[in-house]
């Protein structure tokens, strides 16, 4: 990397020198040329009227110039710096003279032929610099995997662009440009001399860094593309820092950055700037997902082995995104190696995963298949889980892509993730009376077609299917009298089905103006609650499970403008969304604007405003990520939620190694919904709309990021100071109260030291202020208890009836108390063996929570036990922690 930078410095100075002399020559030639044009017009110079029979009607400009010189003996003078010699051209077949041929082959180049002093000069028509467009795909050398977010820029002018989500770029370069730099966080930078070899797509292949260098964040990349409100993370980053049980987790890796957090210790429940987990739009290869947690959210459903690239947007949302209030997490999976077959197998004491990828037809089609499964039920079913039940999860990611031709490509991706949990009724520890099965899964499929219409226009069309399915079954024997009991066999289903079609187009009008626009249509089919039981309803009304059919229509347009010699970048955009149901119609125009002012080459300030609208709501009470969360649409009674987000950021970079970022934000939330009681989603009679109340919210804070991105020691320090408030009618006496995800301080420190290319050590320390908790200020006698009214009948539908408290809590204010802060230090080391051999081995080991901190997972004011109404017992807080010091070890075989 150092050598690359050195080269750039040399190049910069030499190019500057060349540029000055070059301008002088051009000016002289131009003056001469103009004089000659006049002369030629007057004298009908014979050099341009010499008979010349071109040997072919197809060829490059250079081919015809050379052939013309060879056949006629006339010398042609030109500068290759502004003439694209390898451009393919076609003659009409009617050209008979030197002038005819030159006129045809130079058509559209802004260059004219002129004869002077027995020579033909090829001269510019005008004194301005001429531009031409280069475009193509940036791919990984070898595998031909498309690279997202690679920077493409002119090292002299710093003007550039970056590859889109499909690895495509389009850049207009001046004819004075000598070369273009292609760089990416995980790849060695590549300098491509210009002009390009031909007029086709200029596809560039980048060489990956060594395995252990993937942490380095290219300074070059950030000069051009990094923005304070978003983050692009390649998959290599995931393995940089220690992870709980060694599981690489996409969402937890994002939590190292400012403005991000989680509800609980080591939860993958991603929270952005005081927003709820339901306010994040998760896209897996462009397909929205509704439930992203495995094992109560301890792990995300995104298998680190299958993921290629993750982008997180916190503010300044591009207009193409909509539908959620807080953030967008756009995850792309691996396309598959186009050249050769590769794979890996990873085993740890808790899970195993395998990846296989390779060409179906070399250079034309490839596939990637990743499978992950937990092993706890297989390895420990006779000991650990026997007393409680069974649990396992698995994920399957499959992707195939087919190159149709240089301009068209088709992708097919599939994902299925499943959790299964079984809890026995004869549990020796807690007598449940029931057998329970919980079974929840996500399935997504996407079919995409990308097309380069022309070097400036790229379009992609995507058809997707997404399904979330949550099944719960119950077998219970409920005594209803001494002699009689009820056998209840129940099944509850909560599901979401989406089918969508969308098209997005990017049009590079010029380097100073990029236009993008698109349309989308999604058909939603929500069945949030459906419960069937074997019990005779008797007099009860049999209620059909509610099903909601909706059309979600979206359109957007966005224009990115560079003004004042790229000092000012303005990106206005508009996203339009509408939710159409038979009983209601909601439409929302969501303006977006981002303004960035370049203060100096390596620093800028950025301001943005965004309106986001969310038509779908998640009704949830608990903070853990359970599949019992309920997704419901806006209805005629429940309005869509809105967020108005303002942010101001400053970013500076030093020596391409250090990056500093300061961000302040303010977000106003309107019509956000919550429930004022708990919901039972597996009950058709539980009418959720009656329990929803609307309110408002305010999130604000500041974020700081300091990142060292290169060298043997790399690391990240991020700090967030934030507030999140909510206000609802008839809650907390209509006064604002801290949101359950409000955390005052959030600090992350991650360090990694690379000893040599084969092994490194890393450590991370995370700190988060305590979560809000509503603690009673006082307790007072229960109303029924005070009147000697007891009740213990019919516990079937009232789980608390056997745990009767003789007191009522007096809550003066909601969330008036803070739990203890959560912090833990994790260390890890990774060693690679067999580098450059066919079979490589990677061993990762580490320790989670080194100093054995008891972090709060659940805190209870009373005990989780059944006590009689009249029992007198001490009251205190009980804190339950999930993880103490926990070592991990994993082994990966790669081939």
């Amino acid at each position: 990397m150092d050598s690359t930078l050195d080269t750039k410095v040399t190049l910069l100075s030499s190019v500057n020198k060349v540029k000055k002399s070059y301008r002088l020559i051009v000016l002289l030639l131009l003056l001469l040329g103009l004089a000659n044009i006049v002369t030629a017009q007057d004298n009908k110079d014979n050099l341009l009227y010499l008979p010349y029979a071109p040997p072919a009607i197809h060829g490059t400009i250079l081919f015809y110039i050379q052939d013309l010189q060879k056949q006629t003996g006339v010398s042609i003078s030109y500068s290759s710096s502004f003439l694209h010699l390898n451009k393919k051209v076609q003659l009409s077949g009617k050209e008979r003279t030197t002038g005819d041929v030159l006129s045809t082959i130079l058509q559209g180049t802004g260059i004219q032929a002129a004869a002077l002093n027995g020579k033909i000069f090829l001269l510019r028509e005008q004194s301005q610099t001429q531009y031409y467009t280069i475009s193509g795909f940036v791919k990984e050398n070898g595998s031909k995997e498309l690279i997202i977010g690679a920077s493409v820029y002119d090292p002299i002018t710093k003007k550039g662009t970056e590859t889109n989500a499909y690895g495509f770029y389009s850049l207009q370069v001046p004819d004075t440009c000598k070369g273009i730099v292609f760089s990416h966080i995980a790849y060695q930078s590549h300098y491509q001399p210009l002009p390009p070899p031909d007029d086709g797509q200029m596809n560039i292949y980048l060489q990956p860094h060594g395995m252990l260098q993937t942490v380095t964040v290219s300074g070059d990349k950030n000069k051009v593309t990094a923005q304070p409100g978003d983050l692009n993370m390649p998959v290599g980053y995931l393995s940089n820092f220690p992870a709980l049980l060694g599981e690489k987790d996409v969402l937890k890796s994002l939590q190292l950055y400012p403005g991000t957090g989680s509800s609980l210790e080591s939860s993958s429940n991603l929270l952005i700037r005081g927003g709820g987990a339901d306010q994040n739009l998760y896209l897996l290869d462009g397909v929205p997902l509704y439930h992203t947690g495995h094992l109560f959210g301890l792990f995300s459903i995104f298998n680190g082995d299958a993921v290629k690239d993750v982008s997180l947007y916190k503010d300044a949302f591009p207009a193409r995104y909509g539908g959620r209030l807080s953030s967008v997490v756009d995850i792309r999976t691996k396309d598959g190696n186009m050249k050769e077959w590769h794979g890996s197998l990873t085993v740890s004491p808790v899970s195993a995963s395998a990846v296989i990828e390779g060409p179906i037809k070399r250079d034309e089609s490839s596939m990637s298949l990743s499978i992950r499964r937990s092993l706890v039920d297989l390895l420990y079913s006779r000991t650990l889980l026997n007393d409680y039940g069974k649990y396992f999860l698995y994920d399957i990611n499959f992707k195939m892509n087919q190159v149709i031709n240089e301009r068209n490509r088709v992708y097919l991706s599939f994902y299925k993730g499943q959790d299964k949990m079984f809890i026995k009724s004869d549990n020796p520890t807690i007598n449940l009376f029931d057998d329970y099965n919980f079974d929840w899964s996500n399935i997504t499929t996407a079919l995409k077609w990308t097309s380069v219409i022309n070097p400036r226009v790229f379009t992609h069309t995507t058809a997707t299917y997404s399904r979330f399915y949550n099944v719960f079954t119950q077998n219970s024997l409920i005594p209803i009298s001494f002699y009689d009991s009820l056998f209840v066999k129940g099944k509850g289903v909560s599901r979401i089905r989406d089918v969508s079609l969308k098209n997005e187009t990017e049009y590079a009008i010029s380097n100073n103006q990029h236009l993008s626009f698109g349309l989308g249509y999604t058909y939603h089919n929500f069945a949030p609650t459906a419960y069937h039981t074997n019990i005779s309803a008797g007099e009860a009304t049999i209620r059909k499970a509610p099903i909601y059919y909706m059309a979600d229509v979206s359109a957007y347009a966005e224009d990115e403008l560079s003004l004042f010699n790229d000092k000012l970048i303005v990106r206005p955009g508009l996203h339009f969304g509408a939710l159409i149901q038979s009983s209601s119609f909601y439409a929302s125009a969501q303006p977006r604007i981002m303004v960035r002012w370049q203060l100096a080459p390596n620093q800028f300030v950025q301001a943005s405003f965004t309106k986001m609208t969310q038509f779908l709501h998640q009704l949830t009470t608990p903070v853990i990520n359970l599949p019992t969360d309920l997704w419901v649409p806006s209805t005629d009674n429940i309005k869509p939620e809105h967020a108005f987000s303002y942010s101001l950021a400053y970013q500076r970079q030093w020596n391409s190694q250090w990056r500093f970022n300061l961000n302040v934000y303010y977000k106003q939330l309107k019509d956000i919904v919550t429930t004022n009681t708990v919901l039972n989603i597996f009950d058709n009679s539980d009418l959720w709309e009656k329990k929803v109340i609307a309110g408002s919210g305010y999130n604000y804070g500041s974020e700081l990021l300091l990142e060292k991105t290169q060298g043997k020691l790399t690391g990240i320090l991020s700090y967030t100071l934030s507030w999140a408030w909510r206000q609802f009618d008839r809650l907390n006496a209509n006064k604002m109260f801290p949101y359950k995800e409000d955390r005052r301080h959030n600090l992350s420190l991650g360090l990694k030291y690379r000893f040599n290319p084969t092994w490194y050590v890393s450590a991370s320390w995370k700190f988060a202020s305590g979560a809000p908790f509503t603690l009673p200020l006082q307790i007072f006698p229960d109303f029924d208890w005070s009147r000697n009214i007891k009740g213990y009948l019919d516990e079937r539908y009232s789980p608390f009836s056997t745990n009767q408290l003789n007191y009522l809590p007096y809550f003066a204010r909601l969330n008036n108390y803070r739990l203890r802060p959560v912090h833990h230090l994790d260390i890890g080391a990774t060693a690679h063996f067999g580098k450059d051999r066919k079979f490589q081995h990677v061993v990762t080991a580490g320790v989670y929570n080194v100093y054995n901190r008891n972090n709060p997972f659940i805190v209870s004011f009373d005990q989780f036990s059944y006590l009689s109404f009249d029992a007198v017992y001490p009251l205190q807080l009980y804190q339950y922690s999930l993880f103490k010091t926990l070592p991990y070890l994993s082994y990966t075989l790669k081939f």
Partner: protein
Amino acid sequence: MRHLLIIGSLLCLWIAGCKQDLPLPKGGGAPRAVVYSELVAGKTPEVRVGKSIPVAPGIDNNFRFVTNAKVELQDKNGSPIETLLYQPDSSSVMGLYVGKTVIDANRNYKLQVTVPDTKQVNAMATVPPPFKVELLDTVRTLLNGRPVLKFHLNVYPLPGIRQYVVMEALKQSVTTDTSFTYRGVRYRKSQNRELFEQVKNRPDARIKKDSIFENDYLRIPCYTQDENADNNQIGGLNENYNSILFTQNGKPLTTDFYINATALSSNPAEAIAPVGRVLVYVKSVSKDYYDFLLTYEKVKRNPGLNSLIQAIQLRSNTAGGLGVVGGSFQKIYYLYYDEL
């Protein structure tokens, strides 16, 4: 919700090894007077008075009895009507204060309670006007597999007045005891067993068997299938409730009210329900009391005492203290299934 709790409980068990006791923080403030009273039209007032326990290190759930409160019933302007007197009652868990004034329907009352070392409590309660309720039919039937007793009711609206209707059922315990009168004094056998043995065969001793209704109740779960019930705001309509709640906006309310039939009669072979009588209430109550009962239902289902679940705040109208003072006009149906 039940399933969530199961998962939560299991999680707690899994991590029980990591359970840690933490002291409660200080700062719960001074104890407050707790006042519960339902001023029922046509009856004399009863007020239960207690004291809250501020949350602080070392507390428990043992509430102290309050016997030295000053409880005054006032009219809506604050003029005293009556000072209620403390009535010792060993079966009561709070200090019981009773009066002799018969509560009028369609009238506002104020209740002022002063408990030493606490703030004075003031509460206003409106006793609703008389309303008409018709019991059209009762039938034993099944509701979601449960034996229930259905009441088909018709509640007539009061013109121009929003009416808050509460339906609930209790079973009141009954003990049968023998009383005897000897030399002009009446004794209970259970309390004077020795004397009873001495005099039972004497001709001047008059012996009689009594049914005594005790200050001891069992709450009978009740149900509704009516989507107009405000229980919709609390949970599902297949769930059981302490009471069924309706807001009546000037329209007739015809509804089916179900109570669990398991407890209607007691069975000596099982201790599900005590021997006693069943009281079915249909009440029109004051707005504040209704709001309290609505939130009370929520709190009973979800006390909100752990960090997984958001707490529910009880509505109250006892300024300066805790509890509720409500007004009600009620219709009671007495059902006798047990042999007393």
